């Protein structure tokens, strides 16, 4: 008797069965009642089957690949930790990069996981829904692995343990929080442009260059491995974002102006978010890989520029902010570090004046701007520190209503002046750091009048620990804010003289001497 062996399924058939075939059209309720989010933004989709799946990855294959990656990652983390790997990094100043990264990135990965879970539910087609589901799991994995890799450092260095509490409260984390809050409260298509396209495609490389390559260059095998493990997912994410853009543009000509507005908005919001990444590259890595300006030229101007050229055939124009970002690449990292240096009591990481050799490196990398605008103030601060007068600006900041950065960027064309923009909405004044943030506000004022600004909240009496009478006549919000943030005092102040600095030196001595 002949055995009838079922033919093994081809990749394409398997993919169809495991993705699109799992989706169905509802009959008890009309489709538009079940999926109301895909229409209200104004995006018109005529045929969901036209969605191209660039990777054709199915869930079973996905689990297999990811678990393999996890096994390798945790083996390296264990080896690094058991071998006191933290003592092999270049210099204890490096830990401050981890502190800044921990507060600003894993919580945003978690928000991305939540966002893609929501969008996966909201989208109609089986293809995008499965892709969003995988990306949600990826983002959750990044959130976890980043925390795991840094948790070992938390045993030895101050300022890492309250990052989750601080994320939604501290002034300097507000820009990233606001970025994701804005995206996740938009509709599914705007979310895809914001995170899937602008963030993943145009900007993630700049975030991961200083972190991954910086970690490797400074001897941090743990963070480097986490970074590489995440970066292998990013290729899939970038493709998904770009696919979504092309899909929208191919479906209906009316989608073009909506998509263009989102690209303009999110490229700018991402640019603002990256100002502190610039400072990581130029100031916080003891051993530097490349300047922020060089990274910007390579990843944004060249790669991003090529991408926009590619999208030109759909009618997409280069984002309006492109020219301004080119001018700003010479300035933002310096302006950010100045903004953090002058506020030593208000971050769970240390700051410092660059050494004379580091100042020379900055002069070499920024020949047009560094000596003219930034070197004098650093040399002045170094002198003041020697005299025992380390700068400490005790005032509270003014923030942009949209990007929630402190208002610290220069007027285009005039690096000596701060850029201010404002508008009046329903009788109230609102302030911005730039023309682009003002445009974003004016398009959706009802959204941005809700912005959470840490200093303003403190002045309203909303940022004091329990038991403090915020209505007392002598109430001073500044006295309580550090307790409200659960800020570890040992993690604040200048790096020079810090416990981290002393402990690292003592522990390393123990490892190398009698």
């Amino acid at each position, binding site marked *: 008797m002949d055995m009838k062996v079922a033919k093994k399924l081809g990749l394409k058939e398997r993919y169809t069965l495991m993705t699109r075939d799992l989706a169905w059209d509802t009959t008890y309720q009309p489709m538009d009642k079940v999926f109301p989010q895909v229409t209200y933004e104004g995006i018109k989709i005529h045929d969901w089957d036209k969605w191209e799946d660039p990777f054709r990855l199915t869930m079973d294959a996905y689990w297999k690949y990811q678990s393999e990656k996890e096994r390798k990652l945790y083996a390296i983390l264990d080896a690094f930790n058991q071998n006191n790997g933290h003592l092999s990094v270049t210099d204890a100043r490096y830990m401050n990069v981890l502190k800044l990264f921990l507060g600003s990135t894993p919580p945003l990965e978690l928000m991305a996981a939540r966002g893609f879970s929501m969008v996966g539910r909201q989208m109609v087609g089986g293809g995008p829904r499965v892709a969003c589901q995988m990306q949600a799991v990826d983002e959750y994995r990044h959130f976890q692995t980043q925390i795991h890799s840094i948790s070992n450092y938390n045993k030895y260095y101050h300022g890492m343990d309250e990052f989750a509490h601080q994320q939604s409260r501290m002034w300097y984390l507000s820009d990233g929080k606001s970025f994701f809050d804005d995206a996740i409260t938009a509709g599914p298509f705007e979310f895809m442009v914001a995170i899937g396209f602008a963030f993943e495609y145009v900007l993630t490389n700049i975030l991961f260059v200083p972190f991954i390559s910086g970690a490797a260059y400074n001897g941090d095998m743990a963070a480097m491995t986490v970074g590489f493990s995440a970066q292998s997912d990013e290729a899939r994410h970038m493709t998904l974002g770009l696919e979504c853009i092309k899909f929208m543009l191919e479906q209906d000509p009316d989608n073009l102006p909506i998509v263009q507005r989102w690209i303009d908005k999110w490229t700018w919001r991402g640019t603002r978010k990256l100002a502190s990444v610039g400072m990581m590259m130029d100031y916080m890595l003891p051993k530097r890989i490349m300047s922020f300006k060089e990274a910007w030229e390579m990843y944004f101007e060249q790669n991003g520029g090529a991408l926009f050229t590619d999208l030109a055939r759909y009618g997409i124009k280069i984002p309006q902010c492109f020219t301004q970002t080119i001018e700003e690449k010479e300035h933002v990292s310096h302006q950010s570090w100045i903004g953090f240096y002058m506020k030593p009591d208000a971050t769970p990481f240390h700051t410092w004046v660059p050494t004379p050799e580091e100042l020379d490196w900055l002069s070499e990398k920024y020949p047009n701007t560094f000596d003219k*605008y930034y070197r004098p103030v650093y040399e002045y601060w170094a002198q003041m520190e020697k005299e025992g007068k380390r700068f400490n600006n005790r*005032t*509270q900041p003014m923030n942009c209503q949209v990007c929630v950065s402190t208002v*610290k960027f220069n007027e285009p064309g005039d690096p000596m002046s701060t850029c*201010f923009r404002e508008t009046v909405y329903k009788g109230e004044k609102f302030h911005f750091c730039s023309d682009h943030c003002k445009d974003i506000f004016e398009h959706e004022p009802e959204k941005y009048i809700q912005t959470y600004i840490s200093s*303003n909240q403190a*002045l309203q009496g909303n940022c004091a620990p329990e038991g403090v009478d915020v209505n007392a006549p002598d109430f001073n919000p500044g006295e309580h804010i550090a307790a409200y943030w659960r800020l570890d005092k040992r993690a604040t102040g200048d790096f020079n003289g810090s416990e981290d600095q002393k402990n690292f030196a003592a522990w390393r001595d123990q490892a190398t001497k009698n």
Partner: protein
Amino acid sequence: MAVKALAPYEFQSRDALERYKGKQLLFINWERHRMFSRPFILALPPETSFSEIVDKYITDCFSYHPDFARIDWSKVVWQNSNTVFTPDRARSLKDNGIGHKDLIRFTTPGLDGIAGSGY
């Protein structure tokens, strides 16, 4: 433009005047002295005199800068956002036309920061 939404979308401003219990927000910036990175914010009753702003808050914040001692206060140019005005030191914020969330900018002619860098 209105926010596109699936339900009515209307909210109170998170920084509306009534949330400050009789006080108003004020931002202060010393132009071309960017060592301080950004303007600072205060919440004060509108009856606060302008002299208190200068003698207390401006002095406390900015006197760290070596240019501060060199300021000729008779030559200072005051702006409320982009509008130049002449404050009356003895009178209140309100009487000087300064409202909620106004931005006071002052320029000190001849003083341009450390080594003329704007910082």
